[in-house]
């Protein structure tokens, strides 16, 4: 989902180039539809002290559920992305906000069930079906998951909004885009749940997500620099590694702007705790 695809060499023979997962004409069509739905735009806010529990769908969710509940009982705001929304609702947690960024038609399912008090933040690149799913809901806002110099979408947004729109860029997955979005809203303290960037056992998500059932699996090893004794192996899909790479870069360049804690025992939590950067080539 990055606006500037940079080839990322996972390991020899496998290079990833991140790009939005729909073709450009569909993307423009999605944005043209979204901006005409008469929703308010989200705009950068001053810093605020509230703590945010950002919940993704990674497989560590079940094991970290008690920690999540503890933080929510302490007053943290619950923000979900994609299928984590339903996962939380099914466990009687009420998200303050649900963020959807994916441009594919299938993302419409991430808006059910409707919670009247929940804020729904949708990226303007979301499919019309996704926007139709939130029609007549009370709290819906649009944001633009677009780099400020995006040659495809900047003219569309400039024309409609007379140049008054805020680009929210950064990150190849919804979780990282959500962090960038929430940081723009002024939030500084993030606790990430279900943002693992790896398989745990056979699971790629904490819930059924058939779109990822055919993901390739690779075993990678990572460790802090000059500390092979601390090395760990993880099973990853290519998009996991792209997210992990983005995550490390994001922390490196933006890390002084927020406090971040990654819960669970996944790859991202390990990278953050250990200082490891890039997974080593896969074990034979």
């Amino acid at each position: 989902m990055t606006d500037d695809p940079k080839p990322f060499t996972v390991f020899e023979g496998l290079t990833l180039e991140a790009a939005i997962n729909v073709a450009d004409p569909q993307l423009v069509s999605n944005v043209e539809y979204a901006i005409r739905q008469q929703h308010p735009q989200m705009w950068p806010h001053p810093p605020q002290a509230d703590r945010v529990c950002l919940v993704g769908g990674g497989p560590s969710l079940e094991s970290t559920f008690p920690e999540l509940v503890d933080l929510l009982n302490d007053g943290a705001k619950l923000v979900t992305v994609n299928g984590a929304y339903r996962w939380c609702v099914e466990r009687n947690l009420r998200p303050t906000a649900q963020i959807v960024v994916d441009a594919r038609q299938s993302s419409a399912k991430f808006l059910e069930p409707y919670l009247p008090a929940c804020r729904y933040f949708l990226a303007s690149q979301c499919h019309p079906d996704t926007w139709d799913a939130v029609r007549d809901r009370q709290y819906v806002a649009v944001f633009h998951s677009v780099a400020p110099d995006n040659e495809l979408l900047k003219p569309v947004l400039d024309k409609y909004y007379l140049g008054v729109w805020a680009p929210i860029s950064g990150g190849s997955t919804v979780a990282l885009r959500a962090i960038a979005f929430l940081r723009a809203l002024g939030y500084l303290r993030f606790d990430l749940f279900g943002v693992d960037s790896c398989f745990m056992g056979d699971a790629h998500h904490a819930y059924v997500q058939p779109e990822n059932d055919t993901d390739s699996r690779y075993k990678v090893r990572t460790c802090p620099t000059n500390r092979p004794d601390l090395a760990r192996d993880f099973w990853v899909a290519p998009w996991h590694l792209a997210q992990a790479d983005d995550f490390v870069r994001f922390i490196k360049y933006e890390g002084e702007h927020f406090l971040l804690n990654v819960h669970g025992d996944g790859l991202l939590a390990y990278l953050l705790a250990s200082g490891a950067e890039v997974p080593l080539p896969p074990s034979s």
Partner: protein
Amino acid sequence: MTSIAAMERATYSDVWELEPYKQAPSAGMRYSALFTEFARPGETVLDAGCGDGRGAMMLASHGLYVTTCDITRAGLPPVWPLEFEEAALWHDLADVFGPHGFDWVYCCDVLQHVPVQFTMMAVAQLVRQAHRGVFLSVSTQPDPYGIWVGKNLHQTVQGFAWWRDSLREFGPLVDARDLVGSCVFVLNGGAA
């Protein structure tokens, strides 16, 4: 007893004496190009709350037949080439302009200035004057100039969603754009 309209007229007669207010960007000019995506040359337009007239002159340059009105004439230049009537927007505008109405009503950065008890009455009057539609822009920010006359000039300061939901009471909105700090709406006209 002085009416509210008379008091508002006196306030804005003072306000238009302020150099910073005279120099402020004109919303009427800013949104004129967007408005011409809806209105066609040759159509009639009521610029409701024309202020200093810059917006109205821009509309006229696009081939629209413009009539102007405002709570006071004080903002206009001494020689003003377009039709002008002094009017409070919450009064019966048919008494001022007759029963025929206009193709469009164009009302930029005015509604937030209307006394709060009359804001939606003013919208109703504008809708009744328009055959094709009403083009509105509203500021969602506090005003920076009232301090010089000791009054808060933006009497309604509400966000995009509040204005959108309020205006939807008049019918579905043709267009509604959050321009963060201001917003633009297009309503269908209601003139007979």
